[in-house]
């Protein structure tokens, strides 16, 4: 789960925004709600769903340079609707955000874009698939080849992706429950991208290769009112297996967890609340707050007991709505690489 709709706070009335992440749990009248037993319709469902309040196209990549240096990369397009429809021109109630980041072992670059629908500045076209905000584009559907690019004032990248496995549907066939009270989203991924491209960094261009993971998710109310933030893991193990797991932190100190165990052939095994556990081992001050940088992640049912460490603890996305997002390494019963996102650390 990567319900990164914290940006939505922006569009809630001030009182709700003041509640921070809890504001994401408020009701969304007029919008559709995800329903169980979804039937997806592709390629249409790769596109935007204006009847739902929030949606994202979220790509993270673990990359390696020619000298073996590990890198992380993020490309995200968010959609957040003020009303459940689309109007041409400035009256459009659809607001789009883009986030792009690159993490090296000792540096982190992040930048953001804002746009509204209806003007051509940002949007998603379905056939052929094309998602864009400003000059950033994701060109190609997640079942095939995708070309990706983004740029900020001090970095840029282009990445060619090739799908080497099927789409994976989380939860109950793509219906992903987010709380005991039943909040849910539609959620599927393409975790099998092979990636090749170029990072443009202040010290010059770096050719890179690696793997990438695309998340697609949309909902109208992803969080319960008593949830304050989340920790989300996408791990690619050296065995070829993959693990998506998250925990939602609640105001009473308890957590709600959900996970998907993905076999090398793409077979997904959803796991209920409690089957996945993530416990912080060490926190360091990052951007003026304590953020966990080492985790113990366990899935007893799969005999997984690993330590997840950040490549660069400073992978802070210091944007309009800040959060932590960066590459991690996995050691212990299994080894591998992956991405970690942490929100709601005040």
């Amino acid at each position, binding site marked *: 789960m990567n319900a990164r709709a914290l940006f939505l*706070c*922006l*569009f809630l*009335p*001030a009182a709700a*925004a003041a509640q921070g992440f809890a504001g994401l749990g408020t009701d969304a009248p007029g919008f559709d709600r995800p329903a169980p037993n979804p039937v997806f319709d592709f390629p249409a469902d790769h596109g935007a769903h204006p009847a739902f309040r929030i949606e994202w196209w979220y790509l993270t990549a673990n990359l390696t340079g020619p000298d073996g240096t590990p890198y992380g990369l993020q490309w995200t397009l968010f959609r957040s609707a*003020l009303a459940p429809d689309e109007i041409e*021109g*400035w*009256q459009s*109630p659809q*607001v789009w955000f883009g986030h792009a980041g690159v993490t090296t072992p000792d540096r982190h670059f992040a*930048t953001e*874009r*804002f*746009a*509204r629908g209806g*003007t*051509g*500045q940002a949007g998603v076209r379905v056939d052929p698939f094309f998602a*864009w905000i*400003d*000059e950033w584009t994701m060109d190609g559907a997640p079942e095939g080849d995708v070309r990706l690019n983004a*740029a*900020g*004032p*001090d*970095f*840029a990248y282009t990445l060619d992706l090739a799908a080497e496995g099927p789409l994976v549907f989380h939860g109950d066939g793509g219906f992903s429950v987010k709380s005991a009270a039943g909040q849910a989203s539609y959620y599927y991924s393409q975790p099998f991208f092979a990636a090749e491209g170029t990072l*443009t960094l202040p010290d010059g261009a770096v050719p890179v290769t690696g793997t990438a993971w695309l998340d697609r998710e949309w909902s109208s109310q992803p969080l319960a009112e008593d949830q304050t933030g989340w920790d989300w893991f996408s791990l690619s193990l050296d065995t070829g297996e993959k693990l998506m797991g998250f925990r939602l932190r609640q105001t009473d100190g308890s957590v709600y967890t959900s996970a998907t165990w993905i076999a090398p052939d793409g077979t997904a095994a959803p796991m209920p609340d409690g089957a996945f556990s993530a416990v912080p081992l060490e926190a360091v001050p990052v951007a003026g707050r304590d953020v966990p940088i080492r985790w113990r992640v366990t899935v007893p049912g799969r005999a997984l007991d690993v330590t997840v460490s950040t490549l660069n603890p400073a992978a802070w996305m210091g944007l*309009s709505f800040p959060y932590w997002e960066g590459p991690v390494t996995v050691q212990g019963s299994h080894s591998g690489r992956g991405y970690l996102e942490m929100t709601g650390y005040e």
Partner: protein
Amino acid sequence: MTRAALAALWSHWRRSPLQLFTLVAGLALATALWSGVQAVNSEARASYDAAAATLGEGRFDQLLPRAGDTIPEARFAELRRAGWLVSPVIEGRLDAPGAVRIVGLDPLTAPGGLGPVRLDGGTDLPAFLSGDTVFANPATAARLQGRIAARIVPDTGVAPDTAVTDIGAAQRILGRPAEMTRLMLAKAQPLGRPPLDQIAPDLVLHPAQEGADLARLTDSFHLNLTAFGLLSFAVGIFIVHGAIGLAFEQRRGMVRTMRALGLPLRRLVLLLAAELALLALVAGGIGVVLGYVIAAALLPDVAATLEGLYGAEVSGALQIRPEWWMSGLGIAFGGTALAAAGALWRIARMPLLASARPRAWAMSAGRTRRIQIAAAAALLAAAGGLAAWGGGLLAGFALLGCLLIGAALALPAALDAVLATAARGARRAVPQWFWADTRQQVPGLGLALMALLLAMAANVGVSTMVSSFRLTFTGFLDQRLAPELYVSTERPDEAAALEAFLAARSPEVLPILSVDTRIAGMPAEMNGIRVGPTYRANWALLAADGPASAVWDRVASGEAAIVNEQLSYRAGLRPGDTVRIAPDTVLPVAGIVGDYGNPVGQVIIGEALFERMFPAAPATRFALRTDDADGLRAALEGDFGLPAANITDQAAIRAFSLAVFERTFTVTGALNVLTLAVAGFAILMSLLTLASMRVPQLAPVWALGLTRRALGRLELARALVLAVLTALLALPLGLALAWALLAVVNVHAFGWRLPMFLFPADYARLGLFALVAAALAALWPARKLARTPPADLLKVFANER
């Protein structure tokens, strides 16, 4: 002990309420003028900041259309898709009543926080984006109420006469769908953008200004006000210095007694300092309140001035801002400390057993005087150097400062020299004594006389400048406002019909063609003119490249341009030079015209060339020549159906221009009068201070046979002689000041140099005022002297001297 000491110190003020009043009044007056001026300045600056913040003008690079004044909306997405982080702006005017500038922004792409629109959650963004929220200054909001269908939110962060809303809403309100007027560029742009001329050759990049244009343009005006504020404060501090000095002198006996009774010196000095701090607090508080009153009274005039002179919109309502009242209190404390430092120092150094008598006249000041003369000479030399080689506004003000301070420091020496000469010429005993005694008073009266000198010189200088300006300006208006009628139309098609209608009815129809542009990197106007008899006969060229008729011929044929004086100074353009008026157009400068009352540069080109360059800016306003203004006006209203409000006659424009001019200098005039009043007060206080100390000097003269009445008359005469001498010295100083203002400061501040005229009658009247002020100030001390009981005079001989 402390309590007793305090009571003793306080008893002095109880016994001399006049001194207390002088001290408090002087300090309050000084603080009031200073904080009033600061309040006006900070209000104006806040308005500029709001304007800059609202419009992003000057802070960000801009993309503007190469021609016309609109950009099709599609260019926005095209540029963004190419990696140019631009944000659209549409601006237009709405009659609400009174023009309101409607500014439409896109908060999602706007760089930084623009006006009330911020992405930090403080704004109700959904309401803003949905286009039903308009932010406006409270006064403007009231005018918009009911005029537009939107929720109007009063916000003091928005510039006066401006309303900010979403771009979509602004397009709707202005009736300009799918249009933008400019694009703002974010400061940080992404890597790998294509060059602008590849993707948008029809747009021109205008770089951000260092500091907003308005702030730069109006800096000189505010510097002017600040200089006046400081001058008033300096004069006020002379008063405070006198009052504190007197109070301390008179309390020497008390101080000696208290110390003899065992009060430690340290505590005594602390008590005195605390007493002064309390007085400063009270006087400063009164001063800040007075300052608010002064500022509130001046602000509407200042706002009108800034609007008329620079087009800067300044809120007419004064807000209490900490920066000015704190600076007011601060300067009250600082001023008191400055004025009291010497007196406190002497108390601290006074030997315990020192005599309680007032100090003997400080005629031992020979060394001090030499230093003073040297400093004066250095400052005046610096002023001469600045006048000869200095450049820029700052050098202009430095020149004024050196001139004034140098002259003030030289005053006692100059007076002494004149009086010494007079003394040598005196043959009889009484005149000899009179001159010698007057010389002896100069050090004591020095500060007050310096205040008078500065106040008078400022008056002479500023009134010369203003009157010279007025003469030039009215002459200029007479030339420029030759057309009898001015009409405006709403739309280009109406304008065309009007021109056809007028063809047979007016001998000369002059379209008013104007666009805002940038020349040599500075904001400027480009005007297109229809060269005809009106221009040839009425527009005087200050400098020209060839005979005037040839200049006009070249302008008419589009071969040359005329620039105004401001532009010629700022861009260093002389006749014969070339000026780039568009990226692909360079024209020779054929002539320079005077242009008073307009801060920006102007380029004047022929009508045909203007229409080729700016096809999207057709004339909608016209100036008309006619022999029968009333008849033509009636025809325009009756036959053509032009609303009366669209027709203005020459007299109305002339009256309006003169009113703007007069308001420009109302503030200066008011400050002038206040400064002079303060100087008169300073003389009064100095004389009162001296009077009580002079009894021992006068007693022997009285004993030798001069009556008290005669002594009183001589005292009055002495004050008048000193005032006359000071006034005589103030005249050349004032004229030098006027020259510096006209030839240096104005050129840099406004961009025009005016001929200097002399106004002897005004100077004579001012001199008379100064004499009356000095006489009035001297009258009371003289009367007091004339009525000194003989017993007091006798006591001088009885007491040990």
